[in-house]
């Protein structure tokens, strides 16, 4: 009897020990000076073996140059997942260096989930060459919380091959919404399964693209003081009316609702969607992750653009990191992400790997010397027709960027409703949908204070 009780106790204690042990191992201990272990996010997935190898090579080179630093990579896809973000941080599983999309900057910084890296900015390579407006996005009350990594504005991504097939000139992409509608009609007329213009309607992506569209038309989601909804406006109505007419009058948007980011990307990659709103990174992703044919895709400026929703991401440092870990993490960022000709800017290697080099998918350095050096390098090693993207580059230079609204995710969830409304119901009342969404948004803003 004694033995059996003891046995069970041992089991229970053993369990408790396992539990504690795992908790500790997750937060790397800052051992002796120099010996630092950091975990870094965004290693490419196993399904992209070449990119993964390039990353692993970079890690090897980096650790060789920084003796004492051990780098562990995580390959969660996508690297920022709002679902696991908070829990990972709370559970001590968060990487030392993690990525945050611009949509979530305010949330993460506001909740104290990122380390204040102001003391280190002087050591960050090319810090002063980063676009000031982009640096401003990661700054709160004079303190810096992140290293901007990617920045871009929204344009119109289109399939050049489909344009040609439909008798349209791929070198003269639509510049107005009327032209978009015409082009969409012609592409949809190519036959069963062809979609002229693809658009999201759920999983918060509908609201996100509504925001892109209303900004482009010169409208706003919120009033300047962020206290009231401002999307029930002529611009908001125009966005929905255009979508409604394309869907139900022209029948050029296909008959399937697209929910979640992958859905439209997948459709775009299959080569049967003519146009969609998107930044240049859409081209990169469609080619790398959704098997699109790299030569087929072009991007142009947003039609009749008045402003452009900024997109992008920044790297931030775990608030629980020790100074040594933070420094090692920033050194890694310098090496992999911020050095001309190295890491991700090693365009020669990228070309050899078959990456779509030449897409102007990153404007984080703007016109600064670093930015220009990168652009020269990119054009030099371009693996695809850079001219496909020139209309976008030209247009983007003139369109002012506009940041996301506060409480973006909650507002996007509300705005999914009017988007899915016009795309799923021919008799949808746009005024009603917008008025309802406005009421909901206002009470949300009131509740959030």
């Amino acid at each position: 009897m004694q033995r059996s009780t003891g046995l069970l106790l041992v089991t229970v204690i053993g369990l408790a020990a396992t539990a504690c042990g795992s908790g500790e191992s997750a937060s790397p201990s800052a051992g002796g000076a120099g010996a630092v272990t950091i975990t870094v996010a965004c290693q490419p997935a196993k399904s992209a073996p070449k990119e993964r190898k390039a990353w692993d090579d970079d890690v090897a080179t980096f650790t060789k140059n920084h003796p004492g630093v051990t780098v562990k990579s995580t390959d969660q896809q996508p690297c920022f997942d709002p679902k696991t973000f908070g829990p990972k941080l709370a559970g001590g599983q968060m990487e030392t260096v993690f990525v945050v999309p611009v949509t979530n900057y305010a949330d993460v910084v506001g909740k104290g989930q990122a380390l204040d890296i102001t003391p280190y900015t002087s050591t960050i390579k090319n810090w002063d060459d980063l676009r000031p407006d982009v640096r401003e996005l990661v700054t709160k009350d004079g303190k810096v919380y992140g290293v901007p990594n990617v920045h871009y504005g929204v344009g119109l991504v289109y399939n050049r091959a489909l344009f040609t097939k439909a008798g349209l000139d791929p070198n003269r992409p639509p510049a107005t919404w009327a032209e978009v509608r015409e082009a969409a009609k012609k592409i949809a007329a190519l036959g069963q399964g062809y979609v002229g213009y693809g658009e999201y309607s759920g999983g918060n992506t509908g609201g996100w693209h509504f925001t892109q569209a209303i900004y482009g038309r010169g409208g706003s989601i919120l009033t300047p003081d962020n206290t009231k909804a401002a999307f029930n406006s002529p611009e908001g109505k125009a966005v929905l009316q255009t979508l409604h007419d394309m869907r139900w009058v022209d029948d050029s948007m296909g008959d399937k609702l697209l929910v979640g980011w992958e859905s439209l990307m997948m459709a775009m990659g299959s080569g049967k969607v003519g146009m969609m709103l998107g930044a240049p990174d859409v081209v990169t992703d469609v080619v790398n992750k959704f098997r699109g044919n790299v030569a087929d895709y072009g991007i142009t400026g947003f039609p009749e653009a008045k402003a452009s929703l900024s997109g992008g991401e920044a790297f931030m440092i775990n608030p629980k990191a020790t100074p040594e870990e933070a420094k090692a993490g920033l050194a890694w960022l310098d090496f992999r992400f911020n050095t001309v000709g190295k890491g991700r800017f090693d365009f020669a290697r990228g070309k050899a790997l078959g990456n779509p080099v030449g897409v102007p998918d990153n404007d984080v350095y703007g016109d600064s010397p670093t930015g220009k050096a990168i652009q020269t390098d990119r054009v030099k090693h371009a693996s695809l027709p850079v001219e496909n993207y020139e209309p976008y580059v030209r247009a983007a230079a003139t369109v002012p960027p506009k940041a996301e609204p506060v409480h973006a995710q909650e507002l996007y969830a509300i705005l999914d409703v009017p988007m899915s409304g016009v795309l799923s119901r021919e008799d949808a009342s746009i005024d009603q949908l917008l008025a309802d969404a406005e009421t909901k948004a206002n009470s949300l803003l009131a509740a959030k204070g």
Partner: protein
Amino acid sequence: MTSATDVRASARRRPGRARRPRPIHVQFRTIVSPHQLNSRWGRRIYWLVLAAVIVLFTLAFVFPLYWMVTGAMKTPEEIAEMPPSLFPADPTADAFVEAWDLFDIGTLLANTVYYALGAWLFSMAVDVTAAYALSKLRPVFGNVILGAMLATLMIPPMVILIPLYVTIVDLGLLNNPWGLWLPAAANGFNIFLLKRFFDSISRELIEAAQIDGAGPVRVLWSVVLPVSRPILGVVSILTIVTAFKDFVLPLLVMTDSEKMTISVGLSQTAGAVTQNHVMGGLVIAGIPMIIVFFIFQRHIMAGLTAGSIKG
């Protein structure tokens, strides 16, 4: 009881004298009487209904699976064809191989099997000992404890998902198999089934062993467990199948791509691969449970009816 057997026996005898067509053999009496059934119209209707039910069931439950398997054997172009082809024009198993790589199914499957077997071993150890204690050792407050354990059956898992998850986070069990195994062992239904069966084991059997000087562990191991094989089988299968099928908790607890279960892995990647690859992945994910069903069909059905008596 005697009358029932009589009825059965007479039912078996009666149709012997029917006309040429072979009578429908009736083993037990149901709503329709054997006499009605073997009347001229009764037989016609019976065969008609039987055929209709077989066709309907095959269409409703087998055809979707057929569509899934053949879908995986089509090319991405063929699978998007309208109208679709009933048979793959050029059946190929490539999609299975490709899906295996794309979803990293080897890792996912190994993880899932590991979690399911671990959950099984651990919850058997915990629940059998507990049920034995409650049934045969009868400690003070035993009934209170049993009641509290059974009360958890009233609270559906989804309702306490958030606090359960927060608890797992607090214990630092994210991406740790114990984060699935420990909650799996807190299974009131297993305890209920086991205890009820242990209750039916005769006292004499146990007392005989005790007279021979066996302690509680020996009694459990060499007297109770051997006679409890049927219920152990049922509980084992239930636990393994539940662990294999589970979705929400692994979605939250096993977030590392190296540690995901097959269900979660499929749900994360399904949006980014072509439809034939999705189907290939689904077929592979479905096969282990179908095999289990083939082998353990009797246990599973027994578990089901045992389940219906729970209250």
